[in-house]
């Protein structure tokens, strides 16, 4: 699975491409945690538009990343999930523990720090 990372003003967007299956999941947490470290406590988003497939191994990798992000108070969210991937997400209850948005704009809007 190919993974690109785009740096933003306030964080990073991780862009996986292909299938997040058992094999791809092995290296995914390290990529996510690197992006979380680089984002410096801002926001890490995962752009799922090119994510064809996710299995329980992929969900586990995302869970590891959520916990890592929470530890450093970095916000973490996914956006643009494909319907089939969204279904697996919802079935496993992950929609309750990982924020999901329709697109980058709403995801970034939600990650913006609230004004005082």
């Amino acid at each position, binding site marked *: 699975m190919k993974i690109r990372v785009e740096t933003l003003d306030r964080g990073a967007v991780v862009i996986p491409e292909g299938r997040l*299956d058992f*094999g791809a999941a092995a290296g995914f947490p390290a990529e996510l945690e690197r992006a979380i470290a680089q984002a410096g406590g801002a926001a890490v988003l995962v752009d799922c538009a090119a994510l064809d497939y996710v*299995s*329980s191994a992929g969900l586990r990798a995302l*869970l590891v990343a959520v916990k890592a992000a*929470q530890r450093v108070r970095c916000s973490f969210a996914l956006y643009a999930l494909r319907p*089939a991937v969204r279904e697996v997400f919802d079935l*496993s209850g992950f929609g309750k*523990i990982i924020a999901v948005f329709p697109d980058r704009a709403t995801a970034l809007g939600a990650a913006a720090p609230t004004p005082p």
Partner: protein
Amino acid sequence: MTEARTVVAADAGQLAVLTAFVQEFWRTQGLPQQAALPFELALEEAFINVVTHGTADATTAVVAVVLRRAGADLTLVVADDGPAFDPLTLPPPDLSASVEARPVGGLGVYLIRQMMDAVSYRRVDGRNELTMVKRFTG
């Protein structure tokens, strides 16, 4: 009735071979592409369970996978020659747990049950057999 079968080593690295096997069956059978994902997912979860749990004493050598189409039913069988291991006895995940409380795991069998209409296990002739059936309604 159409049937396809493949045999792979009980090694996680063989997952790509099994994914290609499902996709080839789908292509030759002219089945709708979006209907493949539940089978690919069920196959991965079943196969990885065997590789992860069933090889405790490293005697599991091979995993046989069968896809069978009969009428509106599509059957997936994952069989291995390892020690007796029934994945359906694995504890279910706690889907309501918070991030902190949630253990990392337990989802595989649950997803198989969600994706398939019927799931059953039997031990026969020194093999574990997990049979999963899904009926196509259109």
